[in-house]
């Protein structure tokens, strides 16, 4: 068996150097990580959520550690679309990796407006539609849990995003994720990403109050990994495989072994989130580890692993 391993992957028409992304809200706008790794060696990079207007975000505390996890309620703090295009696009362009901009909003029009502006930016490979953030509401139901709304918003954004890849990010907190996944696919999603965080709460028993200023926050980290692997496998089996739509799988990935679990479950690419905080640069180690695994197992192409769960 030859030592040559092809770890590049095709992802919704994009040719990625490898399947490893750093994901929204955990890797800044690209410059912050560069002290620790060559960001250009990533398969892909997803920016912090961008909204039409700048957002200050929530009051502090915005995070709290839990067992093998953390809650965050950053509140979509971001510099806003205009400043993003002015100040950050240039940095992202230099990254030499496929950049997805995560887009959030309060209303369908906002999503469309932000996407339209971004669609003309050469530096960007795709849009990640964030319909799974607990702060975004419409009629009391957040976008990401209502299949009809998902269909509507995905179709609208699809029209606005030109030739950019449209990836829809799903929330795990639904009764049946295949239903929301299917709605996104029907709306025209080119790729799905999952999972976003789980709504959760931590209480300080000395004060009798929630630890987070926002009371609730999103649970991420290794704690959620087994649920995320299950949901990726479910979406792969019930929706993505037949639709030919790739999945960016994430939730608690910290090592190459974790990443491979997600790929076997059905993810074509994998996202590193919370782990960036603990070991900035671990994404590079994960890429190396995936390569080593393929070599050891005689897997010629890393994409041969995808959805092979026996």
């Amino acid at each position: 068996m030859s030592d040559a391993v092809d770890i590049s992957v095709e992802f919704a028409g994009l040719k990625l150097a490898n399947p490893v992304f750093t994901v929204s809200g955990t890797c800044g706008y690209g410059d912050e990580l560069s002290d620790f790794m060559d960001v250009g060696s990533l398969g892909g990079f997803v920016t912090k959520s961008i909204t039409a207007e700048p957002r200050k975000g929530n009051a502090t505390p915005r995070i709290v550690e839990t067992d093998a996890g953390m809650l965050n309620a950053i509140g979509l703090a971001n510099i806003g679309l205009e400043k993003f295009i002015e100040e950050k696009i240039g940095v992202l362009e230099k990254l030499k990796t496929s950049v997805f901009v995560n887009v959030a909003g309060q209303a369908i029009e906002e999503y469309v407006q932000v996407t339209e502006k971004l669609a003309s930016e050469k530096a960007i490979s795709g849009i990640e539609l964030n319909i799974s953030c607990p702060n975004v509401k419409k009629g009391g139901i957040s976008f990401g849990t209502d299949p009809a709304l998902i269909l509507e918003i995905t179709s609208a954004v699809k029209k606005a995003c030109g030739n950019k890849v449209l990836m829809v990010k799903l929330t795990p907190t639904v009764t049946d994720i295949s239903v929301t996944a299917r709605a996104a696919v029907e709306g025209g999603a080119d790729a799905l990403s999952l999972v976003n965080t789980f709504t959760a709460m931590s209480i300080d028993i000395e004060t009798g109050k929630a630890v987070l200023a926002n009371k609730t926050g999103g649970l991420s980290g290794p704690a959620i990994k087994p649920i995320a692997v299950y949901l990726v496998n479910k979406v792969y089996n019930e929706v993505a495989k037949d639709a030919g739509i790739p999945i960016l799988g994430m939730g608690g990935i910290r090592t190459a072994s974790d990443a491979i679990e997600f790929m076997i479950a059905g993810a074509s690419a994998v996202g590193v989130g919370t782990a960036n905080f603990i070991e900035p640069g671990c994404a590079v180690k994960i890429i190396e580890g995936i390569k080593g695994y393929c070599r050891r197992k005689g897997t010629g192409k890393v994409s041969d692993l995808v959805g092979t769960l026996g």
Partner: protein
Amino acid sequence: MSKTKKGLFEGVVSFNKQIGERFYRLGLRFKGEAGKAFAGLVPGQFAEFDISTAGLPACGEIPDDLRDSARRELLLRRPFSFCNVEIDGDEVEVEILYCVVGAGTIRMTTLAAGDIISVVGPLGNGFSVPESKSTALLVVGGMGAPPILHLAKVLKEKHPEIETVGFVGAKSAVDFPLEEIQGQSKDALKSMSDFELNGVTWQVASDEGDIGHKGFVTEKLEEWLGSCDAQKDTIIIYSCGPAGMLRNTAAIAERHGVDCQVSMEQMMACGIGLCQSCAIECKGDGGTEYKLCCKDGPVFDSRDVVFKV
């Protein structure tokens, strides 16, 4: 004071010494690239320590109030400032002063000489010394001591021309994270109004009055400022401590027209600007804006900060 490149490094524990009921001093040695990075550490900068690899002390040795939280599995790194940096040829030894308050710091107590831990640093912006200053007032509240002790030493070494006066306060004598105080008898404490450390004389205050002035340390600061004749623009205050004390210090500085740098704390997930968790509300153009404690701070000009508590 110059800043060096940050990185992910390994340090070797050189000592871990208990200096009070809840206080410890931990030494770490760095070599090679790590040594170079930490040799340039500026007082007020910090680092993120991975303590999840350390063991837990035996159940019986865990303070009652931490017994429930001690078993929490650690995910995130923990931020600590430094109280000293010694350059020793190729190697650098840094020292942190820590208080046992939760799941991470209780594990920290089991680190022993020779243990290797992973450190991300040096991080953030430390204290700076503007050209025009001839007097530095150091104001410490409780666990705010480490970076200010480091600053005191650096000022003495690199700016001997500056007159440096120290003020240190805490709830009561047991809450001073200082060997110089923890070692003393009750009577000695009672009569102690100041002491020498790192070449500076520190005036002491405590809420309970069992050591030094009974009251806030900021009262001593205000008293000093009230009775000094120096030009106010030649004086600078450096402060680290609980939020309320920093707010008072900032207000005093403002009142006296004196520059003031404060080292802030905030819950941090990453320490390097990735997560946006460590927001500090600052005055901005026509309103307020959040800055990042880890990247824009932890040291801020006190005039920029919107104090909440």
